[in-house]
């Protein structure tokens, strides 16, 4: 899975006459663990969906370093509200590989590996819609990683997780990142953003307010609003 980079030029998203994102110019490199920060409604989810190609843009271009269909195939997305297929946990994990026509034996092996990594090995035969909120998020993450994507989008993957589960998931994300997956993640957990992020995108009111290396943005933000947000103040 060769690496992917992407550049947005003048991208905007309008819904019902209101601009909810942009216009944005932005480049994301081939490597890295990008955290997207911003208050509720800033447009983080919209930006991730635009990058993934599942949100219709009203203007501008999204250019991946490879042809659109290849780029799309190499991506995976974990939605803010996990989507469970009405099947067992096992069959939810197997589904993305089944779509690719992977033979049964390697699918079973991968399912066992990923269920173990996110701590769902004991509930493989339970119906996925009956899992707890946190378990659903773990399942959605494992189901996204099972195709070993080049790029992984995560929309608040730890929102319903307790401390221990968050630590486990962060370990899984670090491992995926080290094995070459480029990660773009939103989070409201600033501690997590510091622990995981290599670079930061700060959105405010649909606009790209600040972007830079994690160390620089966290320690010496260029804009007052960014500093206020990082200090835990209310920004709008």
């Amino acid at each position, binding site marked *: 899975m060769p690496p992917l980079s992407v550049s947005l030029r003048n991208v905007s998203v309008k819904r019902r006459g209101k601009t909810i994102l942009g216009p944005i110019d932005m480049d994301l490199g081939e490597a890295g663990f990008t955290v997207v920060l911003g208050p509720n409604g800033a447009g983080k989810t919209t930006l991730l969906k635009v990058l993934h190609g599942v949100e219709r843009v009203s203007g501008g271009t999204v250019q991946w370093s490879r042809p659109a269909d290849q780029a799309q195939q190499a991506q995976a997305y974990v939605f803010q509200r996990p989507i469970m297929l009405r099947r067992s946990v096992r069959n939810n994990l197997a589904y*993305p590989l089944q779509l690719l026509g992977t033979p049964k034996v390697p699918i079973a092996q991968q399912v066992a590996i990923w269920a173990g990594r996110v701590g769902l090995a004991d509930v493989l035969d339970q119906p996925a819609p009956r899992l707890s909120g946190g378990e659903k998020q773990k399942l959605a993450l494992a189901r996204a990683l099972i195709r070993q994507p080049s790029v992984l989008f995560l929309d608040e993957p730890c929102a319903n997780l307790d401390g221990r589960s968050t630590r486990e998931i962060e370990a899984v994300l670090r491992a995926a990142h080290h094995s070459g997956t480029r990660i773009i993640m939103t989070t409201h957990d600033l501690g997590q953003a510091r622990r995981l992020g290599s670079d930061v995108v700060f959105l405010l009111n649909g606009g790209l307010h600040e972007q830079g290396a994690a160390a620089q943005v966290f320690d010496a933000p260029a804009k007052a609003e960014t500093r206020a947000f990082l200090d835990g103040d209310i920004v709008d």
Partner: protein
Amino acid sequence: MRLSGSTIDVDGARGQFSEMNDIWAGMLAAFQLIWSLDADLVEITLRSLQVSLSALVIASAIALPLGTWLAIRRFRFRRATIATLNALMGLPPVVVGLIVYLLLSRSGPFGVLGLLFTPAAMIIAQVIIITPLIASITHQAMRELWAEYHDLLISLNTTQRQRIATLIWDGRRALLTGALAGFGRAIGEVGAIMIVGGNIDHATRVLTTAIALETGKGDFALALGLGFILIALALMVNFAIHTLSRTERHGTW
């Protein structure tokens, strides 16, 4: 007081009494017919099942993909198609019978096929009656499931075919419920198949038309026997629907 009544009163009482007697005797005879697997009874039941199951298979083959298609595709006449479907669902079966009769009658456009008063004509009528019902239930269920799955299936880059397969598989309980509702409607329907089938003995006589005929003739034994079978079939279908929709709600597979 009774003794002083007119003879007409006495006759009336006697008539009622004998009718009650008829019904009891009829019930007994009905159970005997079922118990002994009476040849006519078995033949009529099997023909009923054959006609309605054939109609169910054909209607499902049309309605399941159609309903799913309507749920996931946005096209120009989608709303009009759904409105038409709902209107067709309310069509009185007798009118469907009349229309099919006119189409299949010797002077009608399909007269040359010689299908009138055959089981095929009855199947056609039942297909027309239950296809909109099954398609509508399918559409409803698939629309819900598609709303739930939409983002994930788009994100996973699924083909149109994979989407439909996933929705039909994961929505199979709801689809089965729709099919059963269609079957229930088909097997209990009498107006249309009476018109296009003609209720011909050993050819097009089915449970409902036979019951109508035997009741008219006053032969309650056969009518009740057939009635019990029809009720048993209807109960089984309803029980199956109930069980399926309950497991659906509880999210078990």
